[in-house]
């Protein structure tokens, strides 16, 4: 019941009925994730997405001193969306829990199952996935273009990576 109330409070599924959200929880029960758990790694194969109910995750690229934090993803947001409906696709970034979290894991099978029942969840999730991806692509392209333009203008690539980090930190 507590999880259902949490779901009902998320703008992502605003407009979806309580029975439809309850049906979602029957096929995709909540999963607890410990802090520092590596939820996804770049190169992993997987076509499911994760809906964050509580907690938070860091999305990162690169290793060690070249790590680029792309985003902090919190309650009501989606992770792993680039692989949805693309069976065999590799994850393109690393996702790490930065605090104890609770998530729902959904794949195409779950969404198809719910859609066949006339459930409103798949439409809401698909629309959220599209808008999330569009925003992330836009932000990344803008960041790369901005940093490259500055580096090209000054003939000085040094500091470009640092500027990129600052842009994603905003």
């Amino acid at each position, binding site marked *: 019941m507590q999880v259902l109330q949490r779901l009902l409070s998320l703008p992502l599924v605003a407009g979806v009925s309580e029975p439809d959200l309850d049906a979602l929880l029957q096929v995709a029960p909540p999963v607890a994730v410990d802090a520092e758990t590596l939820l996804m790694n770049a190169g992993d194969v997987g076509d499911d997405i994760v809906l964050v109910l509580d907690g938070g995750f860091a999305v990162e690229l690169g290793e060690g001193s070249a790590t680029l934090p792309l985003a902090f993803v919190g309650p009501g947001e989606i992770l792993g969306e680039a692989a949805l409906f693309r069976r065999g696709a590799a994850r393109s970034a690393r996702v790490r829990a930065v605090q104890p979290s609770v998530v729902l894991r959904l794949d195409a099978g779950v969404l198809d199952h719910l859609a066949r029942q006339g459930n409103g969840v798949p439409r809401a999730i698909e629309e959220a996935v599209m808008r999330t991806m569009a925003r*992330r*692509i836009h932000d*990344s392209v803008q960041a790369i273009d901005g940093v490259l333009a500055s580096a090209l203008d000054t003939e000085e690539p040094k500091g470009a990576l640092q500027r990129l980090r600052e842009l994603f930190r905003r």
Partner: protein
Amino acid sequence: MIPTDIIRILARSPHFGGIATDVLHGISMHAVLQPMAPGELIAPRLQPSEAVWLIGDGRVEVRRLQGYQGKRLEVPVSILRPGMLFGHMELLSEQPRTATWVAASPGTLLRFDRKQFERLVADPRQAGSAFRRALILSLGSQLQAVNHRLGEFVRDTDQEVASRREVLRRALEGVASDGQD
């Protein structure tokens, strides 16, 4: 408008391939055919987005504004080919266009105007679901490519800047450049 031509274009696209003809028919009702001529401006950068296009045949050049040694110019960064979608990222993120699209050859586009696009995206029926999934497939590939590019940039910032500088230098010298974004 000839729906069968529109359905044929949709069916040829990798994003819509495999979708039943009656569902494609539902999608086709929201699109119109738009012929294009070489050099024709399809949509300029920084303008609000008002449509999404699917390339039926022909090629579309993507140009981005870039700077080099204090100069600013629009540089071709990629070529879009038949079956590819464009414009959807800007409409979904509600951001102005960051690129200019110009016809690189004669051809035909399918155009979904903003209102029709939003109607399809929100449609709970099969046509809406198929359309959303096609967009998700297209955006997923784009996001993966952008993340890959970011990864390359992080691994070797100097190399990325040097390679882009060479593209810009050649563009400024009037040498045709067709680098991939």
